[in-house]
Structure formats: structure tokens, C-alpha cells
């Protein structure tokens, strides 16, 4: 990471370590002295919140594994064993299961923050792409984890999702038998998903390191979307942002704890408290809430293969956003038209999420199709065209000037 550190070791052991492995000065540069724009708002605290979420999932997950049995005959009752017999097992499990939802809530806020303030634009394209890699890995981790419980929704969700891979021409059957380890979702499937569920979070941790490394080359974007002009625009990461991020994490923990302690099953499907049964299909098979928008896109296309392709493009298009958005201005604050379309897109995503939870029939199907069409319209037409036709508002001279103006206005009022 770049050399922002004026780290001067004073004690002998630190000097000794520093000459052999300069890890302390590296961390000092990355998390203490790192110059950070002074005008970041609370939407910028979600990066820290996401690190917290990953840590929570890994710690609670490792503890769950100590008591969990990955076998079709025992998985469901071993989860109940955790809930009933393991000391504070109920707490660990409810943190882990709600933690997945909190993780996704935070990542969606983080992503929409990026979309609003144009954080994916030059020179931060690769940060965005690494973020998308993390997001895709997260969906995989969450899906694998959900199957482990071996409830009805685990089993039937796994059946539906793995079957999607079967729709891929030529290699579909091969992929299916690779995923299943047999001719349907069964014990070998549970075993390989268990192994992968343990693996993926550590892959995520690795990509997070790259994500932050890439971030520390150009530094943070900011709500104005203009470049840092000099030291007067920044503050050191510590203590200014360490304290702000810590405060935000604790506020997030309060929200998180509300679910864990007072409505631990509100975000889950009741059907997953019924043990998997291959002879009885639940009336509605729905994924967890965080995958619903993509599920809606999948089902709005009548053809299975085309549906899978549409869903794939819906995710893949996000990787291309840095090039689909043709505007040079980053922040939506100075883009009067894009700002409106940003909110429309957010509403569209929420509608898709709502439709994903409903049966694909009647009005729901019609609305789902319109919302799907709009989703693609936003990325493939609106984003590129806006940058060409929109007249942005004048940009402020610098961050420090804008901050000074603002606090002057605040004092006058």
C-alpha cells in the first residue's frame, strides 16, 4: 500500500520487527495516518460495518461447526441440538442466521452509496469490480449456508438453484452431477456445500484485502465526487474515522441485536423449521429476501435457459457500470437527471424484491416483467445516454472550501 506512513519505531522490539517484516508501518499507513477526505458522511461507514459483519460470520460460523453434523439424517437435528443443548447455542445461531441478512443489508447500502456518488468511476473501477466479486462470493456463501440447515426451504431451494445450472447447454448435466455428487440433492451435495461454505468466507476475506489495497491507491471518493487537492482537504484516518466508524458499527449492532433478541425468525421462512422431505414440495419455494430481486428476474422470463441468462446478465452488468456510465461527473449531487433516475432504479429494485416473494402469476408476473425490463433499460440505455445529454451543475472548487462554506452557512442560520 502506498507510503503515507511516517511511522517511526522507537522501541527495540518494534525496530527489530520493522527491519525484518515492516507490517506495523504498513498497518500504520493504512489505518492510522491514511489521509481521508474530511467530508465523508455516514454512508461511508458501511465499509467498516461490512468488515464487522464478515468477522461476526466467521467467528460464529467456526463455533457452529463445532456442533453441527453435515449429514442428511443429522443436520437438522444437530441445528436443534445447537438451539437447545449447547450453551448459548441459540445466541450463536441467531447471530449467524440474522448476520447473513445484516451483511446483505449493509452490502446493498454500500453498493447503492457507490452508485449515487459515482465511486466506481476512474480511477476506482477496480475497487468496484473487486467489490462485485465479493458480492457474488457472498451470495454463494449465503446459499451454501442456508442449505446446511437441511430444512424444507434448504432442500427445495437447493434443488431449484442447482437445477438452474442444468439449464446451461452442453455442460449443464456435467455441472449438475458435479454439484449434486449424484442424481439429485442428497448427502454428497450437503457435504460439498458444507466444505464450500467453510471455504468461501476466507476467499472473501482475501478479496477484501485486495479491495482495500486498491482503495488505498487513489484514496476515498467523497460526497462531492471531486478529487482531493491537498492536505487541507483531508484528515488522518485515526482518530477521525476510527471513532466515527466505531460509533456507526455500534449503532448497527443495536439494529442487529433487535433482530437477534426480539425477532430472530422474522427474516426467515417458517418452512425451514420443517425437516427436508423429498416427497413433499412446499407451496411456495422462495429464496431468502436478499436474493429476491434476481429471483424475480429469473422467473419473469418464460424460458428457463433465457431466464438463467437474464439473471446472469443482471448480475454481470453491475461489473460493467464503470463503463456504462459515460458521465465524467461522479456525485449525483451535481447530476440533476441522474439523481432522479438513481431513485427510480432503487424503487425498481425494491419492486423486483417484492415480486420475487410472490407467486409468478397474474398481475405479479406483469409487474415483474415491467420491472425487469426497466432494470436492463437503466443500465444499457439510461446510464450511457444520460452522460451524453445531461448538463451537470458546476462543481465546487475544493473539498475544504465547500466544508468551510457549509459551516459558515450553518453558523449564520
Amino acid at each position: 500500500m502506498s507510503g503515507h506512513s511516517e511511522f517511526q519505531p522507537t522501541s527495540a522490539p518494534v525496530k527489530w520487527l520493522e527491519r525484518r517484516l515492516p507490517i506495523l508501518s504498513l498497518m500504520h499507513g493504512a489505518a492510522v495516518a491514511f489521509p481521508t477526505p474530511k467530508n465523508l458522511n455516514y454512508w461511508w461507514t458501511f465499509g467498516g460495518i461490512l468488515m464487522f459483519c464478515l468477522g461476526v460470520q466467521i467467528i460464529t460460523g467456526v463455533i457452529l461447526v463445532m456442533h453441527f453434523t453435515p449429514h442428511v439424517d443429522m443436520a437438522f437435528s444437530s441445528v436443534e441440538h445447537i438451539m437447545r443443548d449447547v450453551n448459548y447455542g441459540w445466541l450463536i445461531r441467531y447471530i449467524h442466521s440474522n448476520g447473513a441478512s445484516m451483511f446483505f443489508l449493509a452490502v446493498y447500502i454500500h453498493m447503492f452509496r457507490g452508485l449515487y456518488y459515482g465511486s466506481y468511476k476512474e480511477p476506482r473501477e477496480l475497487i468496484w469490480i473487486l467489490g462485485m466479486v465479493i458480492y457474488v462470493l457472498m451470495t454463494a456463501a449465503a446459499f451454501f449456508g442456508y442449505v446446511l440447515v437441511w430444512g424444507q426451504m434448504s432442500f427445495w431451494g437447493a434443488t431449484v438453484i442447482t437445477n438452474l445450472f442444468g439449464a446451461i447447454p452442453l455442460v449443464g448435466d456435467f455441472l449438475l452431477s458435479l454439484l449434486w455428487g449424484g442424481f439429485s440433492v442428497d448427502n454428497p451435495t450437503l457435504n460439498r456445500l458444507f466444505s464450500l461454505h467453510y471455504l468461501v468466507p476466507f476467499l472473501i476475506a482475501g478479496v477484501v484485502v485486495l479491495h482495500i489495497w486498491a482503495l488505498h491507491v487513489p484514496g476515498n471518493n467523497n460526497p462531492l465526487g471531486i478529487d482531493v487537492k491537498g492536505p487541507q482537504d483531508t484528515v488522518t484516518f485515526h482518530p477521525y474515522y476510527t471513532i466515527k466508524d466505531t460509533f456507526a458499527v455500534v449503532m448497527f449492532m443495536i439494529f442487529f441485536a433487535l433482530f437477534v433478541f426480539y425477532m430472530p425468525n422474522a427474516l426467515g421462512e417458517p418452512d425451514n423449521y420443517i425437516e427436508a422431505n423429498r416427497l413433499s414440495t412446499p407451496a411456495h419455494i422462495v429464496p431468502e429476501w436478499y436474493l429476491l430481486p434476481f429471483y424475480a428476474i429469473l422467473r419473469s422470463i418464460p424460458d428457463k435457459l433465457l431466464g438463467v441468462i437474464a439473471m446472469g446478465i443482471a448480475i454481470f452488468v453491475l461489473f460493467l457500470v464503470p463503463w456504462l456510465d459515460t458521465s465524467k461527473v461522479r456525485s449525483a449531487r451535481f447530476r440533476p437527471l441522474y439523481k432522479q433516475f438513481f431513485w427510480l432504479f432503487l424503487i425498481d429494485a425494491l419492486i423486483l424484491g417484492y415480486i420475487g416473494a410472490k407467486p409468478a402469476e397474474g398481475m405479479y408476473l406483469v409487474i415483474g416483467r415491467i420491472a425487469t425490463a426497466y432494470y436492463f433499460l437503466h443500465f444499457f440505455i439510461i446510464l450511457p445516454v444520460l452522460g451524453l445529454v445531461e448538463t451537470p451543475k458546476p462543481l465546487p472548487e475544493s473539498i475544504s472550501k465547500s466544508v468551510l462554506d457549509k459551516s459558515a452557512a450553518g453558523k449564520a442560520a
Partner: protein
Amino acid sequence: MKNKSQIILRSIVLAAGLALLPAAAQASEGVALKQVDWSFNGPFGTFDRPQLKRGFQVYKEVCAACHSIKFVSYRNLSEAGGPQFTEAEVKTIAAAGNVTDGPNADGEMFERPAEPKDRIVKPFPNDNAARAANNGALPPDLSLMAKARKNGPDYLYSVLTGYAEPPEGVVMADGMNFNHYFPGQQIAMPQPLSDDQVTYEDGTPATLDQMAQDVTAFLMWTAEPKLEDRHKLGLKVMMFLVLFAGLLFATYKRVWKDQH
């Protein structure tokens, strides 16, 4: 400044919209359930111990003829947060059931009375036996039932009190019973409860309504035996976090003072 308040305003509108979605979704689904003001509802909710004891009595004397509660052991009945029978009472309750144990020194399996450490004995040795005794229908395990249905406790109470004569024109399949709240309104379970089905040891009048509430509360406990612990710990955690957040906010303001 305008931008910021706009964003905040819009987030609030969005959050409100999100909160309303499930309500709208609910409204569009089937028969509205009867709602009971359960003692375990809300952030300070606890189980009503005499009610859990009565509920266990209803389970034991009525439901246990057909339904298992396989995730519950006899010893759980005396644990904190549950019906809290005494250990002596639990021994007596357990001894009424028989379990197969072994092999003994001679290599033989043998029957013995159940002990507190054993799981509550199931009415049928396997699903096929249960079906054979119930016209082909399988009485599901009830341990988790209160969490395995939407609005579980209200649903259980509604089903147990929702039997009626089929309305005119409704043709019932063979061996099925009409129930307002069961999906499809035809249920294989014959009405299990009616007034004075049991005689409560604590003298509470055993009306259908009372028994349905009691057994539902008991099944909520079998599904969520750590509910009281959860509520108690939650309060402590919340108080700590709110206090901590307040201190952090004050520190945050202090640290940033020289920047404004």
C-alpha cells in the same frame, strides 16, 4: 444542506414503504387468524408457568396419542424458562413411558421405563405406523410447529378452535374435517379438543378456548425453549449498546471539534 435532508427524507419514505410491504403481502393472503395476546409476546414477554403446566397436560392427555415432540427430553420439563416441574415430578412423568435400551451384558436389547435424560417417548415407532393409525395421514411432529407456520402461535390456536360443520355445498373428502384456518379448509385431524376434554389439576375450567391457548403456549415453549433467556439477555445487551453508543457519539463530536 438541502441535499442531505432530501436524502434523509427519502430514506425515511423508503423505510416506511419497506415496512408496509409485508403488511400488504399479509393482507392478500387467506383467512385472517384469530389473535391472542400471548404472555410471551413483546420484548419483555415470559411464559406463564401454570399455563405451560396445563399445556403439557393437554399435550400428554390428548395430542400425544398421535403427535410426537421429538426434540424435547423429559429433563427439559424441569429446566428454567419452561414449565418447571420439580425433578421428582419429571421422574414420575418419564416413568410412564417405555424405551428400548441395550444391548445389556448378554447382548440383549431390553425395555425399561423412561428416565429424565430420555427424549419424550413417541406415540408411534415410525411414520408408517403413524399413517396406518390415522387413515393414511401423518400427524407431524409438534416440537417446532409454533415456528414452522406463519404467525405460529395464532395459527395453532386458530386451527384448534377453527372446526365447524362444512358450509353448504362444500364436499368433504373421505375422513376429512372442515376447519376455517387450515389451508384448503379440509384437515385429516379430527377435532382434538372440546370442552372439559381434560380436568386441570389447578382447577382452571377446561374450556375449548382455554385448552387451545394452554397447549399452544406449551408448543411455543417446545419450539423456543430459550425465549425467556433471549429476552432477558436482550435487555442487558441493548442497555449496554445504547450507553456505549452515547459515549462514542460524545467522543466523536469531541474529536471532530477542531475540524468544524
